[in-house]
């Protein structure tokens, strides 16, 4: 097997980590209605890591990502980027949403140029930067269209281009391809992998799909629900592979089965608790 367990909270020091989660927990609401979305957890992410978070619905994946993006504050602990505590959203952490986050009153070009404009580039420079990323994701010819004139897969690529144009140090992606059909998904996954290899960005990627995680990640964190916690963490060699048929190798299938069993048993635990 090309995956092996590792201690995701201690395998490197905070100084070495690009993103450091220290004792991070999140409780929504208060009193009897409160929901523990995340129990205290530690997680270190090195620069250039492609970390996939898998887990069943409700285990706190989106919560973790929102905290990292700075949309929300942890109940305990802190999240640091390069040793500095995160308190609000910032352009160094680009976010790609599952869907529906494009500005539909702007053209594709204006959407993608929004980041550079907001971070102080002139209109013409921002346009040039936007055109460059649009070319990269193959949407140069659609620059003047509005998002609603594009297909779902194209819209998702606009979302990725928009986040990339700002050249963020960290990319946070919450099931970005969940709403896409299998074929579009595979094409875009391949593109993401190439992009990551070329740019060496640190990526936090949330998914329901074990296969997707194995295909992309250098690190896989498996979470379980109620209360949300890290169930296991693996280092994976598949993400760095150049083999396009990696997903049909026996090692890949064995790894997939292993994580699958893990997720299933955590569901069983839950049933027993109930």
């Amino acid at each position, binding site marked *: 097997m090309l995956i092996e367990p590792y201690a995701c909270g201690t395998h490197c020091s905070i100084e070495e980590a690009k993103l450091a989660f220290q004792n991070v927990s999140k409780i929504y609401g208060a009193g009897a209605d409160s929901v523990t979305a995340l129990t205290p957890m530690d997680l270190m992410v090195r620069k250039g890591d492609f970390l996939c978070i898998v887990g069943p619905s409700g285990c706190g994946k989106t919560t973790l990502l929102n905290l990292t*993006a700075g949309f929300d504050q942890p109940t305990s602990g802190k999240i640091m980027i390069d040793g500095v505590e995160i308190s609000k959203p910032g352009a160094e952490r680009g976010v790609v949403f599952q869907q*529906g986050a494009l500005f539909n009153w702007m053209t594709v070009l204006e959407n993608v140029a929004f980041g550079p404009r907001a*971070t102080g580039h002139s209109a013409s420079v921002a346009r040039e930067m936007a055109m460059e990323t649009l070319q990269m994701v193959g949407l140069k010819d659609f620059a003047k269209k509005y998002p609603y004139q594009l*297909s779902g897969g194209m819209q998702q690529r606009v979302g990725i281009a928009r986040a990339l144009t*700002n050249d963020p140090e960290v990319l946070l992606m919450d099931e970005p391809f969940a709403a896409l059909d299998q074929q579009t998904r595979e094409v875009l996954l391949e593109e993401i992998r190439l992009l990551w290899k070329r740019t060496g960005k640190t990526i936090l990627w949330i998914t329901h799909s074990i296969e997707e995680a194995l295909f992309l990640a250098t690190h896989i964190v498996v979470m379980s629900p109620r209360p949300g916690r890290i169930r296991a963490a693996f280092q994976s060699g598949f993400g760095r592979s150049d083999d396009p048929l990696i997903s049909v190798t026996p090692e890949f299938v064995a790894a997939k089965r292993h994580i699958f069993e893990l997720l299933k048993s955590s569901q069983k635990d839950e049933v027993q608790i109930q």
Partner: protein
Amino acid sequence: MTDVYSQSEAVLDKHDEKRPRKRLNDLWLTLATFSGLLAAWLIATGTGPWDPIIQPLFLPSPALVIQTFFQLLENGFQGKSLGQHVGISLYRFSTAFIFCILIGVPLGLLMGMNRRVRAIFEPPIQAIRPVPKIALLPLFLIWFGIGDLSKIIVIAAPVFPIIAISAMQAVQSVSRMKIQAAQSLGASRWTVFARIVLPASLPGIFTGIRLSISIAVTMLVAAELTATSEGIAWMALTAAEFLATNIVIVAVVIMAVIGFGLDRLFWLLERRIVHWSGKD
């Protein structure tokens, strides 16, 4: 998110240019409705070889209405030309309406953006909203005199809360995700407001404005009930006292045309400015 190739009929209807034939068919149906109504009017009022079913006193024939219109155009009504009557009404109406948009929209936006502003202004506005404004007319007359000011205020009274509250609600329902997306692209508070919250609220603001047009026309009638001797609604009310049904109908049609015209105007603006509305 809609795929270009799998849009529902409702969405396609918005892409009018793609369905020219369908649109033409719809136009014919609309024309047929109006022709039918006109025919019923013609028959009922006895334009033809038969006697009128409804007496002209109650419903004058279309021909008489048109004739009355030209007479009014030529001779005016009670010492003022038809243009003057329409003009003064338009002045009262549009002053109130423009005031409501210029003040109500920014106030609503502020209420939507800021909790404190909302805490100050929303309760009084919500409290005034259900009060029938016509009942306040006598008060307005005492407070603001019998001139145009009291009339402008009685028109603005119901329109202002609608426009302000709908702008506020439009801001509050702006997708959080879009605001977060802008923030994580590095947008400042001002940029988030100017480039996300404001445009995303426009559809709701337009809805509020169009909703209040018909209410404003209704209030015009209330405003010209008393303490004036000019205005298109006053003309209708005065003519009714003399049972001059033909003049009443001319005045009503003119008011309907004003209301309908304004609605279409804002509808066109809406289609041009917020063409993306509802296509997420």
